[in-house]
């Protein structure tokens, strides 16, 4: 009896969890980041990587909502900021420990997400983008208005950390592993969701809403589901980041700021929308370029490096509108196709040339 369950658990683990396409590559990269603290990096680098992991979770959740379901959201910091604020308020008013406030806040935001998604259901395209951008601004105004309860613009500082018993230097390493673990778990879950039947339904809504409705799909339910799942992980990222040393263990209205919403869009676009793994890589690369390469190696003054960074992003988006990762995978696909042609003979080559020349409308 027990062995059957164990075998079933193992096979479901093997089929569902280990089935990430470039499996070995992902595993090796994970080993690389896992073994990084062995090289005794400075606190600055650890701080960067912790922030990058949080950004990666956040960008991944955005990618599920926008890249897979097509609900363009420019105010995703709403979920992030709500998660951060609720855990901070629970600590501030009820003095609860970290391991209680974070799950409660994630649960509350997950419960709120369908309510937030509800006004977004009726609108489409540019209207949706602008409405979603408006929602965090409403929340920021409410926080400023009820500043007796929420501390207003000053924010809430001095939140409890995760590992109070460890010495200061080791806390960074511990938090690094914690965020890495959370990133691994949430990205695997999001990837599995994105490639499950539900994920395919999400993509069908992105491709053609009317056609999927005609196929008998309850669009409302699936859109709300996308909002809820996406909100859950964004809230997780926000709630965890509020307690990290990397964010100074404080919450301000900056966690609901439009800049954060734009940042996640930039990260996801850079990595390739709808790939689910692209945003993770992009979060690390951009964070390292932004905070390390430009600051430490090239010594660019701090006013300029953000400017350079945004200009580079604009040029990248202009050059490859579908994202850098999509561009690379497309190139790889082309290479593979050419190799196949070399192996299988010239008649395929002719057909291939003809196909290339005639412009076929792409969906």
């Amino acid at each position, binding site marked *: 009896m027990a062995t059957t369950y164990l075998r079933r658990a193992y096979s479901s683990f093997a089929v569902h969890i280990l089935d990430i396409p470039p499996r070995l590559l992902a595993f090796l990269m994970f080993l690389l980041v896992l073994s990084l603290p062995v090289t005794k990096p400075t606190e600055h680098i650890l701080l960067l990587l912790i922030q990058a992991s949080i950004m990666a979770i956040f960008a991944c959740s955005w990618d599920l909502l*926008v890249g897979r379901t097509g609900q*363009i959201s*420019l105010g995703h910091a709403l979920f992030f900021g709500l998660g951060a604020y609720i855990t901070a308020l629970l600590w501030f008013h009820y003095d609860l420990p970290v391991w209680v406030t974070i799950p409660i806040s994630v649960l509350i935001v997950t419960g709120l997400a369908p309510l937030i998604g509800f*006004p977004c259901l*009726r*609108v*489409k*395209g*540019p*209207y949706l*983008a*602008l*409405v979603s*951008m*408006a*929602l965090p*601004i*409403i929340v920021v*105004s*409410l926080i*400023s*208005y009820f500043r007796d309860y929420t501390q207003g613009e000053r924010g809430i500082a001095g939140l409890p950390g995760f590992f109070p018993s460890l010495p200061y230097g080791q806390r960074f390493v511990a938090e690094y592993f914690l965020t890495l673990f959370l990133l691994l778990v949430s990205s695997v879950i999001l990837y599995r969701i994105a490639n499950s039947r539900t994920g395919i339904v999400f993509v069908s809504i992105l491709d053609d809403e*009317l056609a999927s409705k005609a196929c008998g799909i309850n669009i409302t339910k699936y859109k709300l589901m996308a909002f809820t799942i996406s909100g859950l992980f964004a809230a997780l990222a926000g709630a965890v980041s509020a307690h990290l040393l990397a964010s100074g263990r404080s919450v301000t209205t900056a966690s609901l700021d*439009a*800049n954060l919403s*734009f940042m996640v*869009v*930039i990260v996801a*676009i850079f990595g390739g*929308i709808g790939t689910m793994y692209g945003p993770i890589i992009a979060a690390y690369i951009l964070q390292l370029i932004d905070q390390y390469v430009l600051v430490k190696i090239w010594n660019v003054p701090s*006013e*300029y490096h*953000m*400017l350079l960074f*945004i*200009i580079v*992003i*604009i040029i990248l*988006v*202009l050059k490859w*509108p579908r994202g850098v990762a999509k561009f690379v995978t497309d190139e790889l696909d082309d290479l593979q196709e050419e190799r196949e042609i070399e192996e299988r003979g010239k008649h395929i080559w002719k057909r291939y040339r003809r196909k290339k020349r005639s412009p076929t409308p792409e969906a």
Partner: protein
Amino acid sequence: MIPRTRKTLALTAIAAIVVIAAVAIWWYNTIPTAERGLTLLKTKSIIIFGIVSGGTFALLALGFTLIYGVAGVVNMAHGSFFMLGAYIFYVFTSPKYLEVNIFLAFFIAIILTGVIGATVYRLTIHPVIEELTSLLVITVGVALVFERLMIIEFGPFHYPIPGFVGGYETILGVKVTYTRLLAFSVSLVLFAALWMFISKSKMGRAMRAAAQDLEAAKLMGVNTGRLFMLTMALSSILAATAGILITASTSGIAMPFMWLRPLVLSFAIVILGGLGSIKGTFIGSFIIGFVDNIVVFLIPEGSYLGGAAAMAIMVAVLLVRPKGLFGKRIELEE
């Protein structure tokens, strides 16, 4: 009841106004006689400032709706042109840089912003005009670039924007500065001029054609690339005018983060009225102007809630009419 057609919408609006008026009269009779003077003054302030700020908001949102209506571009950098107008105006009026006549400075500022707008359109927006997500990202990026440039050049400080004329006029016991009245009247004149331009001139006809059917307009020989660029220039000129007049008549300072609030306000107005509808923009801006002033005057410390109330009204209207008050109803396929 959900108003589906324009007729039911108008009926609902009239019914709502009647109910509000009845409640207001009843409320006015309940308050004690000694406090009636203050309440009356507050009501008058709300009405006058609502009309004045509604008129100036119309100028702000007009450029946003124009470029969306003609080219289908959701221009997130609209607030940046607002900011650029104010900054260039500051440069040409302050004794620290170049001091010229204030009206000359105004014209230099709006024309320079127009040129910048056209350049931004050619370089960044034109290549991705088909893809909504790329477009949003690029225009947001442009807005952030301008914010950074202003921080690098001027620092995160506040700069004074001079008013055009001093003094104030007392209307029904409420003091309104001349700069504010100037902003209001310039806004109305520009609105009427633009309306005439779109309905009468050749380029306006081309704009309407492109808004109706892009492919057909191209087939009829409209150079849409050039048309969109000129529309963008016009839109940024309107934004810069709004930037100078609104900043001079309200806060009077220019700062690098001033682009977000006008952007959000123009969202609220334009979405309320329906994206791309000029009539809707006009009505939406008055609604938002009134809501803003009602919240500020009636709720204690209400200035914190000004933006939130505008947004809440916008979301509420969208729940009832997903394409705004005067937007097209949702077709089966986009």
